């Protein structure tokens, strides 16, 4: 079980990754299923959710589900804004900046519940706004949005539970190392995005 947990944590990092933009994750994955797997196959989204999952997993048990709900509320708000034709220019950058902070906090193992809550809300909003399905019918776009919401919430729920069962000292340190990798990756991608 613990090996499986470690593998689940490492998987998003090791998966072959497609380009980071809002769209079906890969050819053929459209509709609800395309939305469902979207967060897993878009690198910036995957590292954001993985980092947040680890950070929430580092919190006291009674904080986990409220933080997951906060994240889900952020996603809902982001998708609601998107459906209302709000199209921000810097959603990817905002998501990466939040991921860099989350990764740094995981590395420091200094998760503060209220700060984690703000970050969960921010990651949820930015992730939703960065997942706009483009160039398709309104009905299909809505189906994709629902799929993306479900995928993003399920993925975070699984990751935070996996992170929460990693209680041995070396496992906690491994998580901190992974957090530093996520934070470093987010910083580099952000710099690249801004320098483009």
């Amino acid at each position, binding site marked *: 079980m613990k090996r499986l947990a470690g593998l689940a944590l490492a998987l998003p*990092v*090791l998966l*072959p*990754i*497609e*380009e*980071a933009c809002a769209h079906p994750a890969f050819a053929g994955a459209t509709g609800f299923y395309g939305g469902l797997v979207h967060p897993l196959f878009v*690198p*910036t989204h995957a*590292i954001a959710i993985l980092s947040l999952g680890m950070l929430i997993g580092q919190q006291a048990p009674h904080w986990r589900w409220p933080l997951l709900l906060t994240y889900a509320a952020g996603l809902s708000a982001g998708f609601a804004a998107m459906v209302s034709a709000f199209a921000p220019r810097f959603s990817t950058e905002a998501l990466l900046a939040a991921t860099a902070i989350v*990764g*740094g906090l995981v*590395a420091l193992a200094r998760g503060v519940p209220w700060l984690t809550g703000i970050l969960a809300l921010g990651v949820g909003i930015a992730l939703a706004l960065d997942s706009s399905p483009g160039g398709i019918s309104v009905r299909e776009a809505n189906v994709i949005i629902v799929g993306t919401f479900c995928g993003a919430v399920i993925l975070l729920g699984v990751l935070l539970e996996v992170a929460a069962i990693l209680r041995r*000292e*070396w496992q906690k*340190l*491994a998580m*901190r*190392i992974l*957090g*530093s*990798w996520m*934070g*470093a*990756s987010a*910083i*580099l*991608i952000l*710099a*690249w*995005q*801004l*320098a483009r």
Partner: protein
Amino acid sequence: MRLIQANLRATVLLVLTAIPAVAHTGNLDGGFLGGFAHPLFGSDHVVAMVAVGLWGAFLGPPPMLVLPIVFPLVMAVGGVLGIVGVPLPAAELAIATSAIVLGLMVASAARPPLWVAAAIVGAFAIFHGYAHGAELPAGTDAAAYSIGFVTATGLLHLAGIALGLTVRWPAGRMGVRGTGAAIACAGLLFLWRLA
């Protein structure tokens, strides 16, 4: 002693037959695999990363794993400097020096306070990150490339730590210290090639 000599010979041979002694080939394709391969094809980068892990082994747990936590984050800051084009003089010189210094730390089984070790590693991480950031290939998928390159760097640290775990045995301790000496010698060679 024989072990140290064998390590030295092996490392010198490896270094001499390796791809040019700069951290990065600059010819790799984008994407995760391109980013993953990038640190692995620069012998000076590889030996310095492994040295970070080996040195951690002498610091013992849990500080052993602090250096691999510090390095990627500080390296990313250096990477940002490279990406945005902030001039950082003598980066390749500093990278070669990092192999010498970190190799000597391992060879001497140095156990400074953790903050000193973290400061040394962090200072060199800036230059390693800078070199990578400055040489990122154009038209690359930035996200996948960055994740690949950070992952490979981290795995090199972990490889060093895994090797360093042998310090609990006398022969292993000698072997690790010998590897440190070999890394320092490799650093001198990198420096000589830059001259």
